[in-house]
């Protein structure tokens, strides 16, 4: 395994790991960690997702980590990642309040995600973030989680993990699902065929949605709201789905493609924690409550 940063390279490393494991059958998977000098802890979400996916597919039966550097072990113990994969280690205390615990959720488990939000974010908030920014962050990850439930049809689960980086004044939170990605969903629902990175872009534009009126419920703009918020926050979002990579940072869109697909979707939200401004919703003026419907 190589370093796992919240970058195109980091996501590529997760995808490569998945494809290596996917060739196995009932195998004990030994991961060589000697080259791993850094893991952005939020990357445990997609990493945990692919490990769990390959366990559920009987590709791997057990995971052994070899030559883990102490500080990497520290990260994986603090956020509770290791016990999820059979490692008999204690969870280390989060001395600096910068860790947001790794957790796997059931494929329709909104209530557990609410409890997760209550436990980790409500009341204590994130250090150095205004209460308003904390709320926008919570709402953003909730929209992302609901989007995963709505579109992925995953049976393996939804994986979440975050990390606050005080020195860089950023908070990264990742949500991964191992289900139907953007491209396949658009193709199945609408018969439109896009390149994987273009499928992500399509889903983030205007009124586009794969929802059908006959199914009764409008939707499909949670991610668009997040993008609007992150533009003003000077933060960023990475979306990886199928082989597509779509990223929005500092107001710029970047697209790329991996050589092999991720078997689902990962979303990484990066908040600029030093931001103290108010947000777009207030910038739209005062709404007349008598004229809302």
């Amino acid at each position, binding site marked *: 395994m190589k370093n796992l940063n919240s970058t195109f390279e980091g996501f590529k490393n997760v995808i490569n790991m998945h494809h290596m494991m996917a060739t196995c059958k009932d195998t004990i998977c030994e991961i060589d960690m000697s080259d791993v000098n850094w893991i952005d802890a939020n990357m445990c979400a997609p990493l945990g997702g692919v490990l769990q996916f390959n366990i559920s597919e009987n590709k791997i039966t057990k995971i052994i980590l070899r030559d883990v550097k102490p500080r990497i072990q520290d990260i994986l113990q603090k956020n509770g990642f290791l016990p999820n994969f059979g490692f008999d280690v204690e969870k280390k205390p989060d001395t600096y309040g910068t860790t947001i615990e790794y957790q796997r959720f059931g494929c329709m488990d*909104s209530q557990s995600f609410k409890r997760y939000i209550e436990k980790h974010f409500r009341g204590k908030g994130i250090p150095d973030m205004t209460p308003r920014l904390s709320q926008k962050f919570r709402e953003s990850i909730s929209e992302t989680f609901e989007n995963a439930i709505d579109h992925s049809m995953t049976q393996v689960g939804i994986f979440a993990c975050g990390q606050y980086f005080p020195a860089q004044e950023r908070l990264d939170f990742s949500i991964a699902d191992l289900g139907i990605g953007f491209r396949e969903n658009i193709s199945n629902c609408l018969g439109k065929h896009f390149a994987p990175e273009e499928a992500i872009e399509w889903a983030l534009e205007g*009124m586009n949605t794969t929802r059908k*009126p006959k199914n009764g419920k*409008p939707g499909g*703009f949670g991610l668009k709201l997040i993008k609007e918020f992150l533009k003003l926050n000077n933060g960023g979002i990475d979306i990886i789905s199928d082989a597509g990579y779509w990223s929005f940072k500092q107001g710029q869109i970047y697209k790329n493609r991996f050589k092999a697909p991720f078997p689902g979707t990962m979303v990484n939200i990066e908040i600029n924690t030093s931001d103290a401004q108010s947000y777009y*919703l207030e910038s739209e003026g005062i*709404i007349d*409550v008598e004229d809302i*419907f």
Partner: protein
Amino acid sequence: MKENIEEIRLTEIVGSELCIASEDGQKAHDSIKRALAKGKRVKISFKNVDDLTSAFLNSAIGQLYGEFSDDELKSKLSVADASNEDLVLLKRVINRAKEFFRDKERFEMATRKMLGEDDVAAN
């Protein structure tokens, strides 16, 4: 004479200040729809709502636009105790829902054209 109006407090239905999950929005929707079906006017209270998502509001309110006419909803629904920020998000959800259901006929025609009449009829 007592006015035929029912107040539905979102946090009471959800059991939390977090109005974020689509499935919780569905519970709110069912209560609102029941009251409307009885001919009542409905006051939707946002009192104590902390976090709010479009996923919740689409379920709770957006889908009503596929079940009742715009005029009926305009005359029977009202909102109380909402912050301006809540109202802005709600307004966007409603505008989108109206557009979504307005497109219903166009969308279904396009689907029929794409799949062929027989495929649609078979579903």
